[in-house]
């Protein structure tokens, strides 16, 4: 996954809007249009008459203005434009509109893509209104899709582990995960179809525009979908019937097609947020640029990571349910183990998630400061307080599960005394993260504070403090995991003590470094401050990676001091697992809201206005209600899926008594 993220960073940025930025600011477009004559000749006509060799001549022409070449109407002089800029603009006009540039169709502006020409505008959905209907269905579709995309990833990896270690348990576990998949897949597809119908029916104008831009992606999308169906069913029903390598190959195919579907669908919705490859009036000039827009890759990466975490948490919830409902010790042991793996996957996704989110936020800012401000400082700033509560809860629950998990490990009692410090760390970070910048206060209260910010808390309300809190939160959670991992092990290598000290030193120094940078952030200018988050993240990553490496070597031949008694975990731990799943789902819903919400009153940001009665941005309270309804619906459907899956499931798994996970 990391490799993918790195890859995403390395690929060149999207093709930016072709027109030089000056083109948009200048008044050219008032008189000239790409493909038709308005006051002056169209760009296509100009490019037809002149070549790049004429640029110097044309530069002078534009500067001086005049009439006679194209008609009696004079072009006004533009003495205030710089030669270099003019050259660039004219160069663009000539090259991008040259007849040879797109010989088959002449100008590469695709006819009929102008928004809102003859299409009917909006239709209404009874009772709850079009927007809420689309909102709920889209969010449900997304949640199922996330699950359906994530499960094959870890099913494939788990199967691979099983194949490599020849441990049958993993194979069975992968199979069981896949069982959840086949029913969910049908749900996803049905919801997707419902969503498209609703969209086409309720937002015909928007959809005809989107079709004009993205119509060409529909075929590959459908083909990929068919391929995915084939892969999924052959992967599931072919379990044990193919040669393992062939079967693994099927799993790989399933993942690749799934990813392809995700990327295509993302291009549609990211285009709506950060349209690219179209003119200001919405005419398509470059198909690939429309797909490869500013937020496409960040959203892809963010989604993949989040999907894994989400999928893991849902699988964990499934295991928790089965554990609580189990009748025998074997069953409990099995589902305890499954819940553990699900939670492990969820944490692995959760830890890098803030970094991916950070990249996405940065791209949004780069695309439009307006949108960035709306997101971070404006109408949505309070949303991040809700998000902080959710993420804080998530981290608390994850840590709590790990601590309770030590109950099943013989010998882990010796780590109990650390719990309170870890808890203290997580709590303080949670408090910092949940501190709003501008506080809700009565007039008296703000008089006492001497303003809208509290002198002490105001400091905690800003970026530097939040970044620091998140990084420390991640470090703390990692320490919890490390302690869990060491529960029943005793290092036998001679340098064990030194190793411990080095690990401690790494943790302490990276924590101090992160906090130092956080404090430093208040004393440097904003430009530097924003960059400080990079070394912070790097320090945390460095600590996690280097400690993991040391630990692996340190415990390679470790003495096992006690066994892991799978199933011997308090029931409340299962509720923690369930809480993680609910919280994750809720965050998905909330993030879905903010991603669509920051477009505000635009269907396609800056290009196509939302003119429906629902163009306003609803209150957070309303959004919270819709998200809750969505989450409950999702869990309702999940219950059906779990039940269906349960009809065919029998625990055929035998715990291995060697204490190895």
């Amino acid at each position, binding site marked *: 996954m990391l490799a993918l993220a790195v890859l995403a960073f390395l690929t060149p940025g999207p093709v930016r809007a072709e027109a030089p930025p000056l083109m948009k600011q200048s008044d050219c477009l008032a008189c000239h249009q790409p493909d038709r004559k308005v006051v002056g000749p169209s760009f296509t006509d100009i490019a037809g008459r002149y070549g790049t060799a004429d640029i110097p001549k044309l530069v002078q022409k534009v500067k001086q203005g005049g009439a006679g070449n194209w008609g009696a109407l004079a072009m006004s002089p533009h003495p205030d434009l710089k030669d270099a800029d003019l050259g660039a603009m004219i160069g663009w006009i000539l090259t991008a509109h040259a007849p040879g540039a797109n010989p088959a169709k002449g100008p590469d502006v695709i006819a009929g893509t102008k928004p809102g020409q003859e299409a009917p505008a909006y239709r209404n959905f009874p009772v709850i209104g079009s927007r809420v209907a689309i909102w709920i269905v889209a969010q449900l579709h997304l949640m199922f899709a996330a699950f359906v995309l994530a499960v094959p990833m870890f099913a494939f990896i788990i199967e691979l582990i099983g194949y490599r270690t020849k441990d049958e348990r993993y194979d069975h576990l992968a199979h069981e995960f896949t069982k959840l998949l086949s029913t969910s897949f049908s749900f996803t597809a049905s919801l997707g179809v419902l969503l498209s119908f609703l969209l086409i029916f309720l937002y015909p104008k928007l959809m005809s525009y989107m079709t004009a831009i993205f119509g060409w992606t529909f075929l590959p999308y459908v083909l990929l979908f068919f391929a995915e169906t084939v892969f999924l069913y052959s992967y599931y029903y072919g379990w044990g019937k193919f040669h393992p390598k062939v079967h693994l190959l099927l799993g790989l195919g399933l993942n690749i097609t799934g990813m392809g579907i995700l990327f295509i669908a993302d291009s549609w919705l990211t285009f709506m947020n950060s349209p690219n490859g179209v003119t200001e009036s919405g005419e398509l000039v470059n198909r690939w640029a429309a797909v490869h827009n500013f937020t496409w890759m960040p959203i892809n990466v963010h989604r993949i990571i989040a999907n894994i975490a989400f999928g893991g948490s849902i699988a964990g919830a499934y295991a928790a349910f089965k554990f609580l409902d189990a009748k025998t*010790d074997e069953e409990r042991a099995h589902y305890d183990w499954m819940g553990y793996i699900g939670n492990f996957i969820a944490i692995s996704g959760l830890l890098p998630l803030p970094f991916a989110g950070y990249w996405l936020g940065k791209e949004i800012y780069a695309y439009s400061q307006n949108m960035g401000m709306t997101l971070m400082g404006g109408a949505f700033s309070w949303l991040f307080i809700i998000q902080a509560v959710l993420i804080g809860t998530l981290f608390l629950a994850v840590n709590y599960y790990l601590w309770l998990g030590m109950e099943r490990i013989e010998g882990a009692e010796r780590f109990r005394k650390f719990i309170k410090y870890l808890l203290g760390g997580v709590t303080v970070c949670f408090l910092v993260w949940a501190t709003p910048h501008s506080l809700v206060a009565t007039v008296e209260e703000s008089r006492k504070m001497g303003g809208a910010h509290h*002198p002490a808390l105001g400091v905690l309300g800003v970026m530097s403090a939040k970044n620091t809190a998140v990084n420390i939160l991640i470090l703390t959670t990692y320490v919890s995991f490390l302690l869990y991992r060491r529960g029943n092990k005793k290092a036998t290598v001679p340098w064990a003590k030194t190793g411990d000290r080095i690990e401690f030193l790494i943790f302490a120094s990276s924590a101090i470094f992160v906090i130092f940078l956080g404090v430093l952030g208040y*004393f440097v200018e904003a430009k530097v401050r924003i960059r400080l988050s990079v070394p912070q993240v790097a320090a945390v990553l460095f600590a996690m990676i280097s400690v993991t490496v040391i630990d692996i070597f340190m415990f390679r031949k470790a003495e096992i001091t006690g066994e892991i008694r799978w199933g*011997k975990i308090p*029931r409340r731990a299962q509720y923690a697992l369930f809480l993680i799943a609910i919280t994750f789902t809720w965050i998905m819903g909330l993030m879905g809201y903010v991603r669509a919400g920051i477009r505000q009153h635009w269907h396609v940001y800056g290009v196509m206005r939302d003119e429906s009665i629902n163009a306003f941005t609803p209150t957070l309270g309303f959004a919270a209600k819709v998200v809750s309804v969505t989450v409950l619906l999702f869990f309702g459907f999940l219950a059906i899926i779990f039940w269906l899956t349960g009809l065919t499931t029998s625990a055929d798994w035998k715990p291995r008594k060697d204490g190895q996970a």
Partner: protein
Amino acid sequence: MTYRFGYLYALILAGTIASPARSEGGSDACAAGKRLYMEKCSQCHGESGDGKGVGADFFNPRPRDFTSGAFKLRTTESGELPTGGDLAKVIRNGMPYTGMPAWPRFSDGEVADLVCFLKTLNPDFADTSVHPKTVTVPKPPAYREESARKGRAIYEENKCLDCHGSLGRGDGESAPTLKDDWGNPIRPADLTRRWTFRGGHRREDIYRTFMTGLNGTPMPSFMASVKEEDRWPLVDYVYSLSKGDDPGYASMVTAVSAKLPKDADGIREALARSKPALFPVIGQVIEGRRNFFPAANAVEVRAAYDSESVAILVSWHDMSPQTSGSNSPLASKGDSSRAPLTDAVALQIPFKAPEGNAKPYFLAGDKKNPVEFRFADLGKGEIRDFLGKGWSGLTASGAAVKADARYDSGEWSVLFLRPRRPAKGLAMDRGVFVPIAFSVWDGFSGESGEHGGVTSWYTLYLKPPEEGSPILPAAARALAALAAGAAIVFAARFRLGRPGAAALSKSHLSVDTESGDPR
């Protein structure tokens, strides 16, 4: 205020390097003080210390002229120069309700540097052989009511009320005629608001002011005229005139439900039941003829309502009532009429119920959100309604009605009566919070039109009458809690008391770590 930045300073201490060491004493220190002065003080006090900086014209009292040698706040005898410590104290504490802020951010060393430089501005300081006589303030005896009562006689005896007024509201007979040494009009202090005392409001501060007088102002020293045993009683009397050390500004005035009779006296009587709310008045420093130092610094408001109307009584302290002539909120720059200006007051409420939290602009509303602006001209004794869309967009919207306005011992009080549900305008229902703001004009100081004192938006709340005693529902809650608590305790005891319950606490709370089997 000192803690405002205490937290950040802690951070700065943690994160930054201390500034280079400052050399002590001599001209170096004065040079450091000069740098500091040029950066932080010269904009008002002037680069040469003559009190004529770029911002000087916008303050009243005007910034101190350091070259003159007249300093108000001293511990030295009348007419003497202040000590260095006196200057340092003013820099440190500022002067409340003037443009001189407190400077807690300066270190002691920096204040010393500044004092050193200030002394170079007046040659009289150069003579270090003269030591001004200082006034020592004895340790104050405990405050006693009896002493304050005795002080009243001393207050009268020493003609304090000629300037400060009979009730201490700064409305004495000669108050309007007072001028400082530079010929600028100056107001006697309003002794009922000791938080505005420039030299501090502790009893020892008041004592010191009596003893030293305020150089450059008509306030003399009473060292010679008031006998030693009369000094503390006088202090105690002045001290007793104020309600407290701080103004206790409110953010809301609660209108009580009452029967409002037809006559003004009756209504005023009914209003006495309402708790007064004090709102700060500030200068209109925003548009048109800005007013940098309004005569009034606070309005006190009471309110009551019945089923038909809301009564709002606005009162404020005014040195001298101006009742001949006229005043109008429309008087603007172009108004060249030389007619004398009268005192006036206005209240404003949004014209329509605010959508969500949005309120009109606080200066007479804006185009999107107009306000109902009720203006009382105390000369004509009439109240007229305006529709406000900003100061320049005020238009008369109703006929004038007679106002009930009274002036007594330095205080105006004006009664506004408004229907609760007028045909046009905001309906005031019980239990709602209505934004309300006030403006005050002092004709004596030439305030008219946008050139007046204003307040920010505050809240008028129509408190529903109490229905029955609150004790019954509270008791019901307590009983419910008791029942719930008892139920829990007895159920738990019953379960724990059963045979085999010893294991219960364990198995019930930590269930399957042991047995693995939920009950």
